[in-house]
């Protein structure tokens, strides 16, 4: 009896303890290992972060001289170093101190290693990552960076700074999320910075429409395809002002290989990167009240918590830079120093092509290239799982790149990926944002841009001495007309690109007559630019920006704040009157409230606007019902639908064309019929919205979620209400928006203003984790102070003193 009693109690003790130490899969959600994470001494209770900090010191052999870091009232670090290397060491350290989980987890995800952390359920995710070849791309980048031993030293000191922080941690100090998922931070390396570069390239320059274009062309035939999908929008306002002369001899480009078209069956989830885009502009002294240039930038990205950006101030005897950095890379991406300001938007040129593979044997180990059988090369990916297994995946590589969509089933097309960012280019691309911090004028800016590779960016520039400029910048293939717009033949080497537009021939402009430069992801230059390029370009924001800037005079910072907050929608302005004019009179009478809202609308997507919601719902229904012939075949073949500017032209030009016919009905509809039917559908939807959200106000309907990497609601900002629409300057949508708004007025002392929807800290318990979400949602800014003397930082949270250790 005694034995049984002991065994029962002791067994129960061990069982309970085991249960509290492990994730137990009960039902859908595994219970967290409560004992582990609630353990007061090593668990989450050690991770709390308040607003009081102790001063810290660090001595490290990599440091040459003393570094002082002051954290200001918003926890922005102000680094005072004596030389560039020490400054970059400190940058690595402070970024890791605030954003370690973000840096560690996102690079592990890029590499395809989530199965190691989260278990075998992530195998498919990891396989997809590895077939996309981002680790391969990062390895190639490191190989070419190593060719610059004197420059890579800068990156190396950054890496040492990150590792100095990681090494200072004991397990109880590991980030909250690491503890929750049972992982620990890994040492940083140049390779991991390269992974970060490549994941940025994936977000910004892997967008393509090859498969969708090919299927659409096959479906419509050439004539109709050209009618519905012209590449040039006459109304567009390109980045380089129309009329700019191109004073150079373009290089010879080989003609495009003929492509025989067939439908491409592709299993990929085709995610158009809608919403990834940005605005930047600068005005020169002739347009400002102060007589000095003003530069503005707001990059639109997926909004996440912690934010992708980290605010930082770096001061050395040579330069004094302030702005935002991307934790994982040295330098200031968007910012200013005492003399200049800079900021980027994405270039939409297509630099990712798909090539259809012609197999030479049934086993798919050889493919045809220029009439010869060519062997596939294998890269064996070893995916470790948390459960302790290793899954092997042999990824096939062709001369083009990986067969990232290689299907077992025979009726799917095997496509090889040819992507600019896969291959190493012999340039020290990590230096651009380090050199921009040091640049003093236009020449310094232009020099810094020379090492930049990809993702290509429109670099806006303004200087205290009065210069403003914008360079479309990066490595861009020189393509023959139509090249890369469709899936290419993979069996002839002519399908590739082998020349690049010489950097000095890429569109750029210095001090244009109109007194301002700008970009908003539209086409780089007017039709007379001698090189062909295709891709994804935005048509409305650029027009809005340029219209506004052309009219503005005596500009002060507040005018720029209003312009970044501007939610006027040209698309709505163009469509609404036409849609209303075609609406039947009985509908106008029956739904007079909705119609009146639209008739009296100023076309602003403000949060209190009901018309904005009505337009958005109606337009979406109208669009989907018109292009039903493309949407209905989506499950079979992925296809394109026309851009909205072209849709408007078709609507005006051929309202009785077959495109407006609804396939599912016997009747032959025209534009007016579709418009009326879509209005009825919209009314139903609007009633649903009213029931669900309580009102039709745009802000109540369209709420923004800023999510955490692990999709934990407690670590996210949910239901953020704000103005804007993807087609407006204030380009917000459900999960994305201006990820950083910055305005810099140059002068004797530059005056910076900025805000991002997050906070400096990566620790979700910190008061600095999401403190800036609310000011951001209201269009408010913080003053960005970059004093030369640390004593001028008024409210100081704490000080971190670093020094050399022998």
């Amino acid at each position: 009896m005694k034995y049984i009693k002991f065994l029962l109690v002791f067994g129960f003790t061990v069982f309970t303890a085991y249960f509290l130490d492990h994730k137990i899969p009960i039902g859908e959600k595994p219970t967290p290992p409560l004992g582990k994470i609630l353990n007061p001494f090593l668990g989450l209770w050690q991770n709390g972060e308040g607003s009081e900090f102790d001063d810290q010191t660090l001595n490290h052999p990599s440091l040459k001289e003393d570094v002082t870091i002051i954290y200001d009232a918003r926890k922005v670090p102000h680094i005072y170093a004596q030389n560039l290397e020490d400054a970059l060491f400190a940058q690595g350290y402070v970024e890791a101190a605030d954003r370690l989980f973000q840096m560690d987890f996102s690079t592990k995800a890029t590499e395809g290693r989530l199965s190691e952390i989260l278990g075998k359920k992530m195998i498919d995710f990891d396989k997809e990552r590895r077939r996309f070849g981002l680790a391969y791309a990062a390895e190639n980048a490191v190989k070419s960076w190593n060719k610059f031993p004197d420059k890579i030293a800068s990156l190396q000191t950054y890496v040492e700074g990150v590792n100095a922080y990681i090494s200072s941690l004991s397990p109880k100090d590991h980030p909250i999320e690491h503890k929750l998922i049972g992982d620990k931070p890994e040492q940083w390396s140049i390779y991991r910075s390269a992974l970060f570069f490549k994941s940025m390239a994936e977000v910004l320059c892997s967008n393509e429409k090859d498969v969708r274009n090919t299927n659409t062309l096959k479906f419509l035939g050439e004539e109709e395809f050209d009618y519905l999908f012209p590449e040039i929008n006459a109304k567009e306002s390109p980045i380089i002002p129309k009329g700019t002369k191109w004073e150079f001899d373009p290089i010879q480009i080989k003609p495009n290989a003929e492509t025989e078209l067939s439908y491409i069956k592709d299993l990929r989830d085709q995610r158009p990167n809608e919403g990834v885009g940005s605005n930047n502009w600068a005005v020169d002294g002739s347009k400002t009240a102060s007589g000095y240039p003003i530069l503005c930038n707001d990059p639109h990205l997926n909004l996440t918590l912690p934010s992708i950006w980290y605010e930082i101030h770096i001061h050395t005897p040579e330069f004094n830079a302030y702005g935002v950095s991307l934790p994982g890379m040295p330098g200031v991406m968007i910012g200013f120093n005492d003399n200049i300001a800079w900021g980027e938007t994405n270039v939409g040129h297509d630099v990712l092509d798909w090539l259809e593979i012609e197999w030479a044997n049934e086993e798919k180990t050889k493919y045809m290239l220029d009439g010869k059988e060519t062997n596939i090369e294998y890269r064996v990916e070893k995916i470790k799982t948390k459960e302790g297994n290793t899954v092997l995946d042999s990824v096939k590589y062709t001369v083009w790149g990986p067969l990232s969509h290689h299907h077992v089933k025979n009726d799917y097309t095997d496509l090889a990926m040819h992507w600019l960012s896969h291959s190493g280019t012999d340039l020290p691309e990590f230096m651009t944002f380090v050199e921009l911090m040091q640049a003093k004028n236009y020449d310094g800016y232009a020099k810094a841009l020379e090492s930049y590779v990809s993702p290509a960016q429109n670099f806006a520039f303004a200087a205290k001495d009065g210069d403003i400029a914008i360079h479309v910048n990066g490595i861009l293939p020189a393509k023959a007309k139509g090249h890369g717009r469709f899936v290419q033949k993979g069996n002839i080497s002519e399908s590739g690109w082998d020349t690049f537009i010489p950097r000095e021939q890429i569109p750029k402009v210095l001090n244009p007559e109109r007194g301002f430069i700008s970009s908003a992801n539209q086409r780089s230059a007017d039709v007379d630019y001698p090189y062909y390029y295709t891709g994804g370009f935005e048509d409305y924001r650029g027009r809005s920006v340029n219209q506004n800037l052309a009219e503005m005079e005596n500009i002060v910072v507040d005018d720029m704040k209003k312009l970044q907050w501007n939610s006027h929608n040209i698309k709505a302005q163009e469509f609404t009157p036409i849609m209303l004019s075609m609406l039947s009179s009985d509908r106008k009478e029956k739904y007079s409230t909705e119609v009146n809202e639209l008739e009296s609308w100023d076309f602003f997507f403000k949060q209190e606007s009901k018309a904005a919601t009505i337009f958005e719902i109606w337009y979406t229904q109208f669009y989907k019902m018109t292009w039903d012939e493309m949407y209905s075949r989506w499950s079979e073949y992925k296809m394109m639908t026309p851009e909205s500017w072209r849709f408007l032209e078709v609507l005006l030009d051929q309202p009785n064309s077959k495109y407006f016919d609804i396939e599912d009905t016997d009747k032959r509809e025209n534009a007016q019929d579709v418009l009326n039917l879509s209005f009825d559908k919209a009314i139903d939807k609007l009633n649903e919205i009213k029931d669900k959200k309580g009102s039709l106000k745009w802000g109540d309907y369209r709420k923004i979620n800023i999510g955490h990497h692990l999709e934990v609601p407690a670590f996210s900002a949910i239901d953020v209400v704000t103005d804007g629409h993807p087609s407006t300057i204030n380009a917000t949508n459900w999960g994305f928006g201006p990820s950083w708004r910055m305005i810099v007025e140059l002068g004797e002392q530059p005056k910076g203003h900025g805000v991002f929807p997050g906070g400096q800290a990566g620790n979700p318990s910190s008061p600095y984790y999401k403190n800036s979400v609310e000011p951001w949602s209201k269009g408010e800014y913080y003053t960005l102070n970059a004093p030369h003397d640390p004593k001028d930082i008024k409210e100081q949270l704490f000080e971190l003193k670093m020094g050399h250790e022998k």
Partner: protein
Amino acid sequence: MKNKFYLGVILMMICSLIFQQFLAWWIIIPICFIIALIINKKSTSSFFMGFIALFLLWFISTIYFNWSTGSTMAPLLGNLFGELPGIVTIIVTGLIGGLIGGLSAMSGSLFRRLI
């Protein structure tokens, strides 16, 4: 007799406090087990000895760690586990420590009967 009980509580608290600084949380199992075995009280009062010791240690340390970091962690954990007030997560932490401490001490005292 009473003094032995308090001595056990204090010993368990001190040993757990020391060893938990660098060892996994379940080190409290052998600690409570052995101390209860040595102290040699009835199984029920051993349970309370372990429970009180570890509940107090975990509860008080948690209040301290939470307070010393601006009381930010309790509300965050409350949110994480679903709209709970912060204090509940502190009490739950104490109860987990208490439960395992109590069960381990009880096991120790029952084991003493066997030898």
